[in-house]
């Protein structure tokens, strides 16, 4: 197992366990760290798990799934940064007419 995979797995497991038993900042930190480094689908599921487990009432009764929405926004919002800093090549290439 590569170091990168190990880090991803550890953050994912910590995020899931944290969503169930640790203070809210633990899964939140895991979501942000996962989103900054990986195309982390598990970060979105951690957000979903928080909402399914802890929302006071269901969505149809007016509760807002804030954690899921936040996780989706963070994961997709960090995509350009991930591409620019961590993957091969820059996002913005030189324009042809320049």
């Amino acid at each position, binding site marked *: 197992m590569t170091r990168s995979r190990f880090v991803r797995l550890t953050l994912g497991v910590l995020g899931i*366990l*944290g*969503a*169930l*038993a*640790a*203070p*809210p900042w633990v899964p939140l930190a895991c979501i942000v760290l996962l989103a900054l480094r990986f*195309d*982390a*689908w*598990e970060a*979105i*599921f951690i*957000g*979903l*798990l*928080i*909402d*399914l*487990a*802890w*929302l*006071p*009432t*269901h*969505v*149809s*009764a007016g509760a807002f*799934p*804030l*954690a*899921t929405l936040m*996780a*989706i926004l963070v*994961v*997709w919002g960090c*995509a350009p940064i991930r*591409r620019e800093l961590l*993957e*091969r*090549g*820059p*996002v*913005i*290439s030189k*324009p*042809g*007419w320049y």
Partner: protein
Amino acid sequence: MTNLYRRSEKPRRGLWFATALCVALILFDWVSGGAARSVARRAVAHLSGYAVSFLDSAASSGIFSSRRALARDNEALRLELAALREETARARALEGENQILRELARVAESAQGITAPVLSSFRASPYGTFIVGAGEEDGVSEGSVVLTQGGFVLGRVTEAGQHNSTVKALLSPGVETDVVAGEAGAALRGEGGGNGFLRVSREATVALGDAVRAPFFGGRPVGIVADIERDEASPSAEVFVRIPVNLETLRFVFVEL
């Protein structure tokens, strides 16, 4: 003209799939009136205990400390282990449980309800909720009041499943409740962790340790006055309220039916 933004070479199918699945699950939960949540909550009720013990043992195992600290911890643990024999620990646990149940029985004398175990951590929820092990089959319904063993109001059931229920804590962040502290009436604003605060007139007769009662809950206490801050320049005083119970160690609650 060339496009300024290069398309990603990776298709990100997993991310698209996860996003679509999560949105679909939320929509399904919406349409079904909480079916997805009740399944998840049952799983959480089972898994939460394991997760708490795993995280606690990971934290106390010394994984994150230095070698010297580990050796020190190891020595301390050896001494502790020698002192605490298995039989003593078991007897103590049973004694503690017995005391809690006896206190809850006293609460039950004044109100009709059932004793339910707390199945989840108090600190884990960002929404100020927790799960108790009693549901519709035990007579619990939405709106049932949840009390501590001392009779303090902890919160209300917001969603009752078959065998477990979600409780919204009264002092969860942002929740306001009309209360009477001493002889002054005010709105108590929850801050989470069993703490809250309210503003009363500077001349109001409120003292440390006074019970803060909620008329909406039949005059039951919701906390005690933990601190009062009076500023000469301000016409009002800030009163800090807390539940006189350690929520982290709360194992049983009383659910009024």
